[in-house]
């Protein structure tokens, strides 16, 4: 019997030396991302992440990975180079697709595509207050997901090249609201679905229109939006691809409704919105909007309730006043860090820098 125990012991010792043992044990299968784009935090720190290629929104429970060792987010010069190094590649081989600041840890999460063509892989990294960049282990995450509504092909042999990119998403009053842009039809649908996701509710799509000033309305894809209460009513304040800033009541986002946004400001050519954040300063609410070419705009929300719709052409700047923040240039990504600062990724002199910037 003693001999048997000894043999078992020896076999076990040998087995432990020859079997692969992962220092980080493999976990159950996590979300199967094929691509990763826009991010948004929701209730309880759930992270919504859009997967364009799979036409899916994942709701990630970050668990222990919600926070690095140090709260906050430290500035990182050349953040694209630093993330690329972590991913074992060159800065030119990655694309930063979005950032989102965790509501409690204040760490910044960055969605990244690594590689090119069919070999491109998604990655999610976390940057903490000490400047540590960690790769989030997606395999270890609990998650739920919902598929975006995509039109079925009518043709039996259609080339199938249609794809829809999520331009922005946010959790609003019990629903996840998603805006997108198709690479075929001029789609302007804003889609919303209750969260937590339910298999029985596929959500509601509404067609978003913009009232021009020539007695015409046009479909108007939303590039960025924030939920905001105006005169006691929850509204969506949105920036269109064609540049106006509009508002419409959240209650109108019901299946089959036609929603025409009320124009409250006009920004002009080259001001396609990239990101919008809402913040408070000196007791007043403001929206900070980064845009494609002309830097960052600061818009006071106080006039939103009383501002009449812009329904006739106005010379020059129209609608609620806005201020161009000359000190914020080259902003590609924007999110709110805390009560006083935003987090931005700027592109300057051939590299990208992540930094906290005092809210203007």
């Amino acid at each position: 019997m003693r001999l048997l125990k000894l043999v078992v012991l020896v076999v076990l010792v040998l087995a432990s030396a020859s079997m692969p043992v992962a220092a980080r044990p493999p976990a159950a299968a996590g979300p199967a991302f094929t691509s990763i784009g826009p991010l948004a935090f929701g209730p309880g720190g759930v992270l919504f992440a859009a997967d364009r290629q799979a036409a899916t929104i994942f709701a990630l429970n970050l668990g222990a990975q919600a926070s690095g060792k140090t709260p906050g987010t430290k500035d990182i010069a050349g953040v694209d180079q630093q993330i690329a190094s972590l991913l074992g590649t060159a800065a030119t081989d990655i694309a930063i697709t979005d950032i989102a600041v965790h509501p409690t840890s204040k760490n910044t999460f960055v969605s990244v595509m690594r590689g090119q063509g069919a070999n491109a892989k998604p990655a999610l990294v976390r940057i903490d207050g000490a400047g540590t960049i960690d790769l989030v282990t997606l395999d270890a995450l609990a998650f739920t997901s919902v598929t975006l509504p995509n039109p079925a092909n009518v043709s039996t042999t259609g080339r199938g090249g249609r794809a829809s990119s999520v331009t922005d998403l946010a959790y609003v009053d019990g629903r996840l609201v998603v805006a997108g842009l198709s690479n075929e039809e001029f789609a302007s649908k804003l889609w919303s679905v209750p969260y937590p996701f339910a298999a029985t509710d596929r959500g509601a799509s509404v067609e978003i229109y913009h009232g021009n000033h020539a007695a015409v309305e046009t479909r108007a894809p939303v590039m960025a939006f924030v939920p905001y209460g105006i005169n006691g009513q929850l509204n969506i304040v949105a920036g269109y691809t064609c540049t106006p800033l509009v508002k419409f009541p959240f209650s109108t986002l019901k299946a089959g409704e036609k929603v025409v946004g009320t124009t409250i400001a006009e920004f002009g050519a080259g001001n396609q919105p990239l990101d919008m954040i809402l913040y408070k300063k000196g007791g007043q609410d403001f929206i900070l909007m980064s845009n494609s070419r002309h830097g960052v705009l600061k818009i006071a929300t106080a006039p939103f309730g009383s501002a009449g719709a812009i329904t006739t052409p106005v010379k020059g700047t129209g609608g609620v006043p806005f201020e161009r923040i000359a000190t914020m240039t080259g902003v590609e990504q924007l999110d709110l860090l805390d009560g006083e600062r935003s987090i931005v990724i700027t592109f300057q002199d051939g590299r990208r820098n992540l930094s906290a910037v005092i809210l203007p």
Partner: protein
Amino acid sequence: MGQWGNGAMKTWPHCLIAALAILLASCSRPPAPLEVSFVNPSGGAYLVRVSGLSSAELKALEAAKLDDTAWQRVLDVRVAGAERPVAGRYVMAAGYLDFVPTFPFGPGLRFEARFDPTGLPQPRAAEPIAASWTVLPGQPRGPAVVVSAIHPSAGAWPENLLRFYIHFSAPMSRASSVGFVRLVDDRGAEVKDALLEMDVDLWNDDRTRCTVFFDPGRVKRGIRPNRELGRALRSGRRYAIVVDATWKDQWGQPLKAAFRHEFTAGPAIEKGISTADWRVTPPAAGTQAAVEIAFAWPLDRALAERTIGIVGSDGRPVAGNVSVEPGETRWRFVPASPWRAGAYQIVIDQSLEDVSGNQIGRAFEIDDRDPVAGAPRADRVFLPLTIKSGQ
């Protein structure tokens, strides 16, 4: 299990002796020379391997449950000169310590691995050892990529054109069209602020087709960019879309050549598509001849390919092959089997648009005094198609 057990019992003494011999040998063996190298076991992905560690040292590493920082003190792998190590996991297998990168080592880069024996849970008094390795750049698997087509393919584009498609002969990189595609006028000067400069992914899934939008703020009447700058295209003038050769393919190589598509801007199309204006040519029963639809003006090619089909009297789709002819004014459908005499229907999804965004019965720009024009409607439109025998 039973058989294994019996077999094992029979060979017990031999097994025991062999196992004990290995165990004793490894315990008493002096530490072997350490070596660190980049290897690809079995021809798979490359990893960093440390050999020469004793089984006791490997076991201690396994038991130590090191955090990332401690692991990196033992075995650090990074792009040469980088401030941060590469993400990966540490595996003890078959007498080795392996570092397996989360992503394959990037092509064209030099990587450095440094193993420090003093960082082991049972530190070994030895100098750190290092290795470096340069990954060969990825080799293009085909000839340089060319622009194979542009749609609309016609030589005239309406001045309120909303978008166009650039097709490539092979998959491209992830880069958007921003900075690589320009509109130039008949003097060769770039028309500024013409195209939507958004870094939104508008590729198809295999990255052989990129959609480029004209700035809708200039196309739509009455919006500030339109009031300030007007439409980018002016009817009657000549223009060209120029695709820069520096746009890279999936292997990082530039296009074989720049591409240029010249066209004349025509009048804006500001009315809804009327299917009553289409000419449908039905084939004869018993043949596999094409159903042809001639449009009144060019439609969006991608949507015409995808959103028009044929259904039988039972409502089920008829299998066949769709093609849209050059100029995007004619749609053809060749059935997989011969037509039968009877009633069919042409089915059209309401997302069909012409090149200016006009839909069936609904112009892109809707008169907002017309309560019907923009009202919600059915998803699909059906047109009758009767196949007769003996035609």
